[in-house]
């Protein structure tokens, strides 16, 4: 009986996370267009609904009804399966994220985490890296030079940022002594001054930079940079298959925002009179706004510059950070 209850609870949680995050990802596309437009002195979508809010529905209808073209020489099974990998891994990574503090509904205590595994951070980082197979396989299977270049750049990006994000996370994890995100969150429950960003500012910076690279956002959007390789790995995709890549990218952005908020910015601990659930929503909104802000302001880097940055600047900094943390701990 108890096992059945747990299974039902988990299924409900998974469905809720899938629905809410997919909705958030769709809404993030609208917010992105609006924020970028205002930053570039434009208005953005204005015609569909008040201030263009129904542009979401219009885009959704367009994506679903568009013809799904599979190029003649593409490796068809891989071409078809590749877009599924992106959102699948992005949503799988969310299984280990505690979204909110515990709350009680009708006398039943709900922990808003699908599975509280004791290696949560490792699981999320690993699954998010598997997500890089989506652009890699898509680019290699679509017999298109731009797509192939995009796939090659995917590998470059993966090799560059993965080292930095792993090493950057190591220092705070040494302080905490646990890989579970709930433990990491509880470690910072002493108010504003106990946030890990004050103890590990360098690790925060490095992990944020690696997060930009992991989600292919603007300073490191080399795998789909329009001016160089049309649309990178997604050049040959159309309709909902392309939309799946898009959902995966935005779900990844939300995952990275949650990770940064929980590991460095105090997670869902209540702050002053603001309850924890509101607090973490504010934090992830601020981080997603940072994604959009940076996209509006900064140019992007070349692949060689990205490798130079990650291997020659950020990785030594991360190692120095680990060394200093270790010395202080001893």
């Amino acid at each position, binding site marked *: 009986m108890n096992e059945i209850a747990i299974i039902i609870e988990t299924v409900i949680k998974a469905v809720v996370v899938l629905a809410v995050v997919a909705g958030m990802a769709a809404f993030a596309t609208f917010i992105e267009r609006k924020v970028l437009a205002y*930053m570039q*002195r*434009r208005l953005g979508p204005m015609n569909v609904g008040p201030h263009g809010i129904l542009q979401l529905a219009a885009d959704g209808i367009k994506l679903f009804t568009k013809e799904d073209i599979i190029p003649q020489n593409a490796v068809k099974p891989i071409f078809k399966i590749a877009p599924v990998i992106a959102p699948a891994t992005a949503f799988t990574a969310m299984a280990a994220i505690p979204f909110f503090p515990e709350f009680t509904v009708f006398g039943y205590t709900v922990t808003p985490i699908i599975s509280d595994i004791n290696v949560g951070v490792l699981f999320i980082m690993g699954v998010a890296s598997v997500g890089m197979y989506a652009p890699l396989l898509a680019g290699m299977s679509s017999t298109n030079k731009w797509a192939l270049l995009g796939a090659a750049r995917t590998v470059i990006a993966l090799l560059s940022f993965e080292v930095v994000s792993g090493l950057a996370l190591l220092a705070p994890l040494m302080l905490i002594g646990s890989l579970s995100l709930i433990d990491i969150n509880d470690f910072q429950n002493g108010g504003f001054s106990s946030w890990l960003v004050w103890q590990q500012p360098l690790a925060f910076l490095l992990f944020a930079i690696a997060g930009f690279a992991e989600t292919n956002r603007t300073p490191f959007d080399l795998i789909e940079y329009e001016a160089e390789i049309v649309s990178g790995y997604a050049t040959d995709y159309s309709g909902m298959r392309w939309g799946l890549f898009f959902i995966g990218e935005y779900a990844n952005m939300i995952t990275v925002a949650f990770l940064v908020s929980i590991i460095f910015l105090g997670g869902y601990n209540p702050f002053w009179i603001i309850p924890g659930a509101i607090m973490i929503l504010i934090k992830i909104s601020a981080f997603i706004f940072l994604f959009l802000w940076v996209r509006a*302001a*900064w140019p992007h880097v070349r692949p060689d510059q990205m490798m130079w940055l990650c291997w020659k600047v950020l990785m030594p900094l991360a190692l120095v950070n680990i060394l200093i943390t270790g010395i202080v701990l001893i």
Partner: protein
Amino acid sequence: MSLEQFSKRDATPGYIYYEGEKKPKTPWESFLRVVRRAFKGELFVGLWIVLREMVTKGNTHTLMYPEEKFVMGPRYRAVHKLLRLQESESERCIGCGLCEKICISNCIRMETKLDENSRKEVSQYTINFGRCIFCGYCAEVCPELAIVHSGDYENASEQRAHFGLKDDMLTPLDEFKANKQQEFPGFGALSDDADSFVKKTPLAY
């Protein structure tokens, strides 16, 4: 005023010449450049500028096109119009044929005849807009200000020949009686909001 003040007309006070950054020669200099660029905060200047533009109200450049339209200046040369005389409501065109002669792409064609009062009458007047290059010579040469360029730039149609026939170009009588005929202010005329574009010249005097 002495002569020096007039002859020194190349720059306003406070104009700075920038010859670009010097290239680093030694590895130490290039290291210093990396440090200088890393801590200069130029990236944050960019962030601040886009944030300032986002929160500033009313600095958008978007024209909500079908509802709002751009004010065309009087010098703009869109499809032609044939105007009427203010007093007698009859056409201004006297059929002199100057526009037909001067048209460098040979796209104006007019047929004239003598009417019952032995006055010249324009029976047919067409412009082939497939060939017209909108140079404005016809409007410039017209002695009666009869053919002018209008500001109508929305020329979607089902037929190639539209907009170029005499009936399309001539001001309709009902529009004329409603006093809606746009007078052509002449070549070189300033737009209505020209005063707002006046700026001081960036010269020294």
